[in-house]
């Protein structure tokens, strides 16, 4: 085996260069604090770091949206709570108003207070945010949600709300539609409405708002209860549905003689519904039962104000008043249920946002810890490795010098 001088010194040089490279690598690691400087040093690790960093930047991207959604929902909840307070006050006033000891002036005063309530409700519905945008107009943020159109209030926003992403695959309602919150409310008892024919009825009978006793037996139809006089001179009633035909008395029984005799306060049950007729109706008086129509909070309140503003002079007026109050109480119950339900929904939404924000925050933290674990160099380890490498480097250099010495020895001989 020959040891040619040039390759021998080349090899020694290589060994020293390699050691120096290691030292330099460790030096860079310590200086930057990062395990790898270029992805190609360890592509698999680099990919994992990149994945985690992408995740971090994505989660951070939702931070602002989350805060905005939180603020907006808090504002909505606040305004809906106000609306809820208004409905509670209206319900109190409605109970007061039905007290027969009140005179026309008292009722007019209540109507006046209700006008104020209506205004508060309208203010809630037409809430604007800092930028002056109407928060309950859906997409039509530049227009008030509700406007007065003659004696009616009309929703003019969009029926769809606007959405905002607050997490991966998580959209949250941001611009609410006032239609969902204040409009589209089913009147009456929520299934059907009752009314008396106030122009033609001569008696003082009042029909109750009624109940849905069985939704499976419920048949959607327009029904009339017509008071008749039977052969024996007793007031009796028949019930006819526009599509269902005569229901009471049940055919083949016929009116008026087979019709049941009218008893005040008696429950009349048919097709899954029950209503009560009270007071003193006269022959040919008609009471109607129709499927509920939908309307908005403001119109329901306006009708209530109209009812209370009408002065009562006669028993007939009083009966009409009670009839209307009975219907409107039922309808307003729907209004307050509707707002209550929405308030619960919004509360739930607030909780969802809160949870999502916590989720985002937790995952962001986990990702940041992960990123640091993956990419940050362990300084203690790196420094001790550097010390070790430097020792090896010295030994390598010493070895080279020793080999040189042997040759010098040879020459000096």
């Amino acid at each position, binding site marked *: 085996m020959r040891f040619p*001088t040039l*390759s021998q010194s080349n090899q020694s040089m290589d060994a020293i260069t390699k050691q120096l490279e290691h030292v330099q690598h460790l030096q860079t690691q310590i200086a930057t604090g990062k395990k790898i400087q270029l992805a190609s040093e360890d592509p698999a690790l680099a*990919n994992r770091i990149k994945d985690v960093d992408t995740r971090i930047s994505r989660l951070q991207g939702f931070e602002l949206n989350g805060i905005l959604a939180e603020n907006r929902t808090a504002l909505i909840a606040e305004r809906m709570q106000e609306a809820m307070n208004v409905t509670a006050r209206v319900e109190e006033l409605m109970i007061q108003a039905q007290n027969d000891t009140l005179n026309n002036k008292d009722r007019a005063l209540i109507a006046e207070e209700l006008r104020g309530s209506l205004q508060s409700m309208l203010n809630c519905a037409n809430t604007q945010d800092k930028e002056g945008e109407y928060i309950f107009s859906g*997409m039509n943020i*530049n227009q008030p949600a509700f406007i007065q159109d003659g004696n009616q209030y009309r929703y003019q926003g969009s029926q*769809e709300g606007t959405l905002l992403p607050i997490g991966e695959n998580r959209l949250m309602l941001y611009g609410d539609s006032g239609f969902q919150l204040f409009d589209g409310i089913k009147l009456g008892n929520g299934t059907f409405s009752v009314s008396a024919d106030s122009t033609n009825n001569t008696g003082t009978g009042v029909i109750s708002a009624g109940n849905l006793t069985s939704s499976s037996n419920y048949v959607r139809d327009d029904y009339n209860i017509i008071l008749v006089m039977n052969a024996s001179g007793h007031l009796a009633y028949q019930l006819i549905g526009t599509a269902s035909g005569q229901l009471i008395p049940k055919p083949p029984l016929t009116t008026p003689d087979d019709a049941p005799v009218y008893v005040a306060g008696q429950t009349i049950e048919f097709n899954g519904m029950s209503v009560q007729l009270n007071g003193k109706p006269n022959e040919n008086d008609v009471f109607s039962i129709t499927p509920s129509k939908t309307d908005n909070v403001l119109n329901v309140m306006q009708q209530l104000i109209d009812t209370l503003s009408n002065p009562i002079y006669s028993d007939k007026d009083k009966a009409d008043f009670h009839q209307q109050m009975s219907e409107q109480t039922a309808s307003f119950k729907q209004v307050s249920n509707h707002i209550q339900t929405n308030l619960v929904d919004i509360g739930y939404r607030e909780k969802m946002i809160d949870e999502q924000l916590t989720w985002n925050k937790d995952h962001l933290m986990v990702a940041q810890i992960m990123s640091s674990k993956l990419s940050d160099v362990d300084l203690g380890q790196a420094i001790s490795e550097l010390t070790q490498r430097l020792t090896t480097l010295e030994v390598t250099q010493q070895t080279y010098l020793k080999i040189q010495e042997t040759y010098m020895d040879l020459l000096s001989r």
Partner: protein
Amino acid sequence: MSSLFEIGTRSLTATQYALSVTSKNIANANDPFYSRREVILSEAFNSVAGNGMNVAEVRRIFDDITNKNAQKMTSEFGKASAFSANLQTLESLFDGDSNGIAKAMDASVTALNNVNINPASIPSRTLYLHQINNMVTRINGLDSQLTAEQLSINNTIKDDVVKINLSLQQLAQVNASMVGATDTERQELLDTRDALLNSLAEWIGIETRTDDAGILSVNLDNGTPLLSGNTRYALVTSPSQGNPERLDIAVSHPPALIPITGIITRGDIGGRLAYQNNALNDAQNALGRLALGYAQKMNAQNALGIDLNGSLGGMIFQDINTVITTQNRIRPEASNQGVGDLAVVIQDAGQLTTSDYKLTFDTPTHYMLVRQSDNQSMSTGDITSFPQQINVDGFSLNMTSGTFVAGDTYTLSPTKKGARDLNVSLRDASQLALGFPVVATSMSENKGKGQLVLTAMRDTTTPAFSTPKQLNPPIQVVFTSATTFQLINQLDNTVIEDNLIYDPINGADIFPTPAGFDPGFSVYLSGEILPGDAFTLNYNTNGTGDNRNGLAMAKLAQQGTLDHGTLNFDQAYATINSGLSSLAYIAQAMLDSSNTMNKQAQFKRDQISGVSLQEETINLTRFQQAYQASAQIIDAGRQIFDTLISMTRR
């Protein structure tokens, strides 16, 4: 007596010669291409007692196979180091932290999310537009750096070629000098030749052969001669016809030019060509594909929405299929004899690959289209009439006219210029179409709980959007029973379609209808609906706060839209980036191993031919002693002679 003097003189001369050879070895110990010399001494015979010693020959110690192997390893190392060094540059160019493309993409998504909070806000919209512009500038910038990379490859190859030609010239001179040279001169010429061949091998892969007279010939791997006798054949470079950014290399055998670009696989040039073809081209194509995908998908989404003025959205980015860009995607070879009016039109950027394609005609009418990345034939057929459209991998090759000749070849690069041509054409931020053009409304008189929701915009080029800022016609959905409905034209109350069936339990997408009426959007009906209930679909005339299309855009950025729906924009970029890192990692590993093998091969060569100072020092001592001893022989002869003289004097 005379023999004593003769022996002494001869061995003195021989030893002196041996000493000079040893000194020469010592002097050249640090020349890596010097092959050590060995002095062979032999007995000189011409009388009974002998005539002492002669220098029989001075041998130049080398092993042809070991030398060739070292040369080969030098070529491999040259390739690996060029490849690895270039890839490291490319990797750092693509590194997301330094060029900021990944950050700019993230920032644009964040800006879009902010616009979606407040779609009416001009400042938010403008900020988003700025962010897109910033991203585009960075992508353009990276692309121009890639083009500069190509230029630097070209320059290096040109330099290499100059050096190769010079070396070949010198080798030819060595060949010429070999004739009639003395042995010593020949040996020195061989050392020079070894050095020249080694540097030649560093730049390009070669095969060498030496004839009996010691004349060297040099061939390329495929046998193309570069040097034969005293004639050298120079390499020349010229811009490639199919791809003018690149260089073609040829050997000049006057009057012919033999193209050799395809067969250079080793040496520095081999490494640079491999980098150009496998890494740089792919990276530029992949970046181009990302740009094309971004432009096409965002443009398509913007076209589905309405802007702040209520008009349908236009293009955010410049059209990816302008006449010039489609024509630039295809290039004829210089050798083509036919001509054709051809264009490459991107149909669906989501289906594009990062490969180039080759179109060849084997007869004047029969063509073959081959994908370069895997050499797969994508389409073959006959061109008998015009226009022709060949659809492949998300693009179409459109032939408007042409006469072709067998052998005509075209290079198709559908994606290469994508990043260069990416350009934001939208100037007015209010023209970002963040809303949907249609609103669904349920009539306030409705008794049921049904809901009609616009779920997606699919197409705004339908007749439904033919009149600006109007739905044509505005549609009313009217329920005739709980499970049937009709569509009515609100303008003239005519029935568009009757007796449509509605399933209240599962809800229903009502477009397209069974009779095929499709206005270009999807609406979903759900909930219990009662007879007489109605819904309307109108143009969104007041949707300043509408962010539905903005949300769709944000979703698009996260969704897989590229490479057959597997990559979103971020991922597409990260994939290029990590692909290059892996490639750089492999290149480094290859460099390490070829470095080791190269060193081993050099070591083997040095083992045979390299000078060992220890050895030579010992030889020096040995020959010194022999010289002194030889001098003693002469001295002894002289003393004998003196003794003889003094004896006769007496």
